[in-house]
Structures are given as C-alpha cells and as structure tokens.
C-alpha cells in the first residue's frame, strides 16, 4: 500500500460515524413492515423447446421460397402497343377548313377602328392649326 492509499485509509478511519440506537430501532421497525418481494421470473430464451426453433426456421424458409416463386412466375404483362387508330385518336383535331378571316376577324375590326380614330384626330389637328 503506497503513501497516498495509507493516508486515505487512515483519514477515512478518523471519520467516526455510528448508527445511533434511535436510528437502529427506526430501521428495525421499518424492516418489520416490509417483506421480500417475489423474484420476477423471466423465461430464459434457452428454455424454449427445440421444436419452436425448427418451426420458426421452417416457416421462414417456406415464406422466402414463396416470395421467390411469386416474383419469378408472375411476370408483369406487356403494355399494349398503341394501334395507328389509337394514335390518330390521341392527336387533337384541327379544323383546317376554317377561313383565316374567321380567326382574325375581331383583330381586323379593332385595327379599322384605331385607324379611323387616328384619321379623325389628324383632321381635328389640321383644322386647329388652320390648314
């Protein structure tokens, strides 16, 4: 035992502590009101029957085999090739027979109205300046 250990031991021994009679009686009285609780018994894993492990292993193997079989036998169906008729139906139809004037008629009217307004404004300016 080295110097520090001896010193610590000696200093600990110099701490004088004793349980008083009063505390001793208090503890004894408390102990009489308590009884040991039953030890909780956990079922150890090793106590399971060997059949349990065989059954669980077999179940696992069968399940894995079933998944493999299902995955390999049920190939997804080929997606249907679209027929030419379907392709035509899918394209939006444009009415090529429509006249250009039908499509631009409103714009043309608007343009005419604007040109008329410009002419009126030009004429008014000429009158104002005496031309």
């Amino acid at each position, binding site marked *: 035992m080295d110097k520090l250990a001896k010193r610590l031991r000696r*200093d600990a021994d*110099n*701490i*004088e*502590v004793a349980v008083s009679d009063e505390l001793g009686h208090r503890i*004894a009285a408390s*102990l009489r009101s308590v*009884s*040991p609780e039953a030890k909780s018994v956990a079922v150890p894993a090793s106590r399971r029957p060997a059949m349990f492990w065989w059954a669980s292993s077999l179940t696992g193997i069968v399940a894995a085999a079933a998944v493999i079989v299902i995955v390999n036998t049920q190939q997804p169906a080929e997606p249907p090739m679209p027929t030419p008729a379907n392709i035509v139906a899918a394209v939006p139809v444009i009415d090529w027979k429509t006249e250009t004037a039908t499509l631009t008629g409103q714009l043309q009217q608007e343009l005419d109205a604007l040109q008329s307004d410009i002419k009126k404004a030009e004429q008014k300016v000429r009158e104002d300046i005496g031309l």
Partner: protein
Amino acid sequence: MRTEIQLVEAAQAGSVEAFTDLVRRYRDRLLRFLLTRCASHADAEDALQDTLINAFRYIRSYDSRWRFSTWLYRIAIRNAAKLRTPDVVEIGDLSDEENDPLMQCIADSESENLWISARHLLNDEVFAAMWLRYAEDMSVNDISKALDRSASWTKVNLMRGRRALDAELNGRNEKSEAYG
C-alpha cells in the same frame, strides 16, 4: 455464528432477524459513505434507512455472484442520488463546511483530513470511486458494479483522483516545509 451466505438465504426466506444480522456489519460504514454524498446528517440517515428497506424488499433478486457489500453500496448510491436532486439540495450546500455532515464527524484535530480536500477537488463519482477503493477496500470490478460504470472508466478515474490528491498532498508538504 452463521456465514454471510446463510444469512442471505435466511433473509431471502423472509427472516428480518437474519437480515438485521447481515447488515449490522455494514451499516456504520454505509452511513459514513452516505455522509459523503448527502447534504445533511438527517439525509444520510434517511438514505441509510431507505437503502436497508430496499435491500430487504429486493433481497430475492440479489445475485450471489456479487459481493453482498457491493450490492448494498449500489442501492445506497441510488438512494443518495434521489435525495440529491436539484429540487432538494442547493449546489452550494455541500461546500458549506459548517453544514457539511462529513466535517461534523471529523474531530477538530483532524482538519487536515484528505477526504475533505477530496470533496472539493473531485466530482461526485470520482470521489465515490476513490472512497470505495481506499476507504472500503473494494476491487476495481466491484467499484464499477457499484457505480454502474465500466472497469476502464473506474481505472481511469481512480488514476485521475489519485493524481489530484497526490498533487494536493505534495502541495501541503511543500507548504509545511517552506513554513518550517
């Protein structure tokens, strides 16, 4: 006179007398240890009472591979920790030497007691490890079980505690030599 194992078996069968005989040899040392971990003498006594009651209540779950004293100290440490929750004890209380229950048990002539310095220099767990090692002669394995720590943690912290106390002791010696 019955051996410790016989007393444990009788206590496990429900004998209060056997349990009282069993803990009689430990209770003074347990109280001394609890005084190092509680804020007051009264708290330490309460912690001792709770420790012994819990030990008796759960004596059937005691594993004889442990030393009985190690098992008791482990319960004691838990009970002391419950009493040292921040709601119950102000941090400054333990450093107040007048209220320090450990100081009250040390004679005035022993004011150089190294355990007083240890309380200031070491944290709670390192102090407990040092106490169990040097005051209670516990092995490193038993200390690690009592503190619920690994053996390597215990070894490292015992070494740190020793280093801190060695420095303190050498400092004191140097001072006493200097002042002649």
